[in-house]
């Protein structure tokens, strides 16, 4: 009798407890996992969504037009200022540079007759680019002669602060695109990685897959600099040409109005060339690259003259900082003259 009563009480207690626990678990589950219901009305959501529906391409085009109109009104204001200070590029080309210089469509804004035989003994390109007044006597020819002398004597100086600023200003809206040759630009600190899209060991067919990434920030200019991976990868140069043209076409399609510049495919070091028969074909690829560029309205910049055996890294493929210093001075002079 007594046992029965106790059992009944325990039963009731257990039932109450059990009920409580079940409710507890249920509420707990709802709290833990059920709270994600949206607190934003569909109207608000679509409102915010609609703020960003303009396509990036349209916006880039619109802003570019705006900028152009502004530039025009500014140049009109500046029209009366004499252009003595401009660096002369076209007028000073030597015979062996003229082939690429004709493709480097640099407009000579200066009066050709003004070109002087320059005394460049103490001048660097950076000063030329950033301090135009001081360099009005400088020609590309004499600059290259000076750089060649510095390369031969191994006295190439670091980029000065003015030159670094000039590089970053000039290429603020440029993406450098390529393999480890391009990666080095960032690694050496000439530019931030935000100006660089690269994939190590990439061949052109792989780089085609990175075009979207290049286009993501709508650069005004793309400078392509690749190394020897292709010489190893493509047995037929025709395949190299096919992929390269595809890449150029895709870049142009993805970035309206983009200017594409290609820097030479550099040969391997002499030492590496002796043991790697495939890489010796590099000049053939480079020759092909020139004609690809010429046929596709792309600017080709010959940078093979900067190569010195002493400036290869141990692998015989990549270049040290010295190469890039001269390379950047050259690019600054080619593209930064106005």
């Amino acid at each position, binding site marked *: 009798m007594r046992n029965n009563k106790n059992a009944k009480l325990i039963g009731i*207690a257990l039932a109450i*407890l059990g009920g409580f*626990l079940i409710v*507890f*678990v249920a*509420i*707990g*589950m709802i*709290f*833990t*996992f059920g*709270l*994600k219901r*949206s*607190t*934003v*009305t569909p109207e*608000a*959501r679509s*409102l*915010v*969504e609609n*703020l*960003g*529906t*303009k*396509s*990036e391409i349209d*916006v*880039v085009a*619109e*802003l570019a037009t*705006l900028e152009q109109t*502004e530039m025009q009104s500014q140049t009109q204001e500046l029209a009366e200022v004499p252009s003595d200070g401009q660096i002369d590029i076209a007028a000073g080309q030597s015979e062996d540079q003229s082939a690429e210089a004709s493709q480097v469509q640099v407009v000579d804004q200066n009066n050709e007759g003004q070109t002087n035989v320059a005394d460049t003994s103490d001048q660097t390109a950076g000063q030329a680019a950033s301090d135009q007044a001081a360099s009005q006597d400088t020609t590309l020819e004499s600059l290259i002669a000076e750089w060649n002398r510095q390369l031969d004597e191994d006295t190439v100086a*670091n*980029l000065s*602060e003015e030159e*670094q*600023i000039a590089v*970053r*200003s000039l290429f*603020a809206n440029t993406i450098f695109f390529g393999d480890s040759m391009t990666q080095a630009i960032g690694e*050496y*600190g*000439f530019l*931030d990685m*935000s100006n660089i*899209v690269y994939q190590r060991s990439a061949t052109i067919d792989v780089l085609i897959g990175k075009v979207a*990434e290049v286009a*993501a*920030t*709508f650069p005004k200019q793309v400078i392509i600099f690749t190394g020897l991976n292709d010489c190893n990868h493509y047995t037929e140069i025709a395949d190299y040409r096919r992929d390269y043209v595809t890449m150029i076409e895709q870049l142009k399609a993805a970035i309206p109005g983009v200017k594409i510049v290609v820097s030479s495919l550099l040969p391997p070091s002499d030492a590496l060339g002796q043991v790697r028969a495939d890489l010796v074909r590099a000049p053939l690829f480079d020759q092909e690259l020139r004609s690809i560029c010429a046929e596709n309205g792309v600017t080709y910049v010959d940078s093979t003259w900067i190569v010195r055996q002493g400036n290869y890294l141990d692998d015989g493929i990549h270049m040290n*900082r010295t190469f890039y210093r001269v390379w950047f001075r050259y690019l600054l002079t080619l593209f930064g003259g106005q």
Partner: protein
Amino acid sequence: MTGVILLLFLTVISLLWPSRRFSASERRNLSQRPTLSYEGLLDGSFSDDVESYLADQYPARDIWVYLNSLQNRLLGIDFQNGIYRGKDGYLIQRFDTTKIDAEKQTALASFLERHSDISSYLMLVPTTSWILADHLPTGAPQESEKDWYEKWLETSGLQNQENVTIVETAEELSAAAKEHQIYYRTDHHWTTYGASVGFEKLAEKMNLPYEKVDFEPVTVHTKFQGTMMSSSGFYSGTKDSIDLYLPKEPETLLVTNKEAQTTATTIYSEEGLLGNDPYEVFLGGNYGLLNIKTSSTSGRKLLLLKDSYANAMIGFLTPYFSEIDLVDPRYYSSDLEMQIAVGQYTDILILYNLQSFASDTSLSLVLGKETAE
């Protein structure tokens, strides 16, 4: 007897209770079940992991957090994790700083001196602990944000620097707070209305042709509960609205996240609005370097060094600047000197709320960095 059953029951339940990765109300990732390893046992990290795992994955954790805050409320406790439960549903972060950071003052002064050719503006926005001090629980002790600010400014010497304009908004915000909501109740940010009050003062100092009527507010969120609620555990029933002030004159924007290499054509983020922290509707969060190109023909280019307070104000700036670079020093990894040399800025604005400015340690690092190839 029941106690024992309850204990056993909870133990069993906690073992069976599914693990959760993320707590939406606390806005943090929760500890996951630790893996047993010999090294872990030896150095004691395993038992630490177990402890935090059990604490984080406790069954119905959110209920307990709520019950705890309810208990605090019943007991009359209104201070948790540096936050006061103030009047009218306002959670107020206590101002704790007494130290004047001379290093930051020097870094800032010499930075602005170095760039004396650029018009610079320093705008340190008071927070609730100053403007809504009358909402604090009666007798709640705290350091005075106002005193700290005045002392900081005086000792910094920035007022006397020629190219530097100090933009003070305390009076305007205090006046506005009587009529409108200028801070969120459960979040430490200012409302977009609050930002508009601040901007009006800034526009005056910067000579921007700002007219209130050029912007139209739209409400995009009506149930906003912010991060202060989660960090204090003071669950407040009051929910706030988030408004955007859109310019009536349509504008064209290209927003580039320089580090992630992504672009957008608006400064507002749908993803942010729907995410765990709806305040991220502004810019989608905080990033090291954002570049905004606008359709403004003003020709002015702004460098904005900022914390998250600025995010709600960007919408007011875009019509008046051709280009804006937003630098959040906490996440910025580039070289600021180089960026300024390249950027050709006409204006520099340093915009922080006073609490984050007082405790910030990243700004002076970014300002003082030196360059090299």
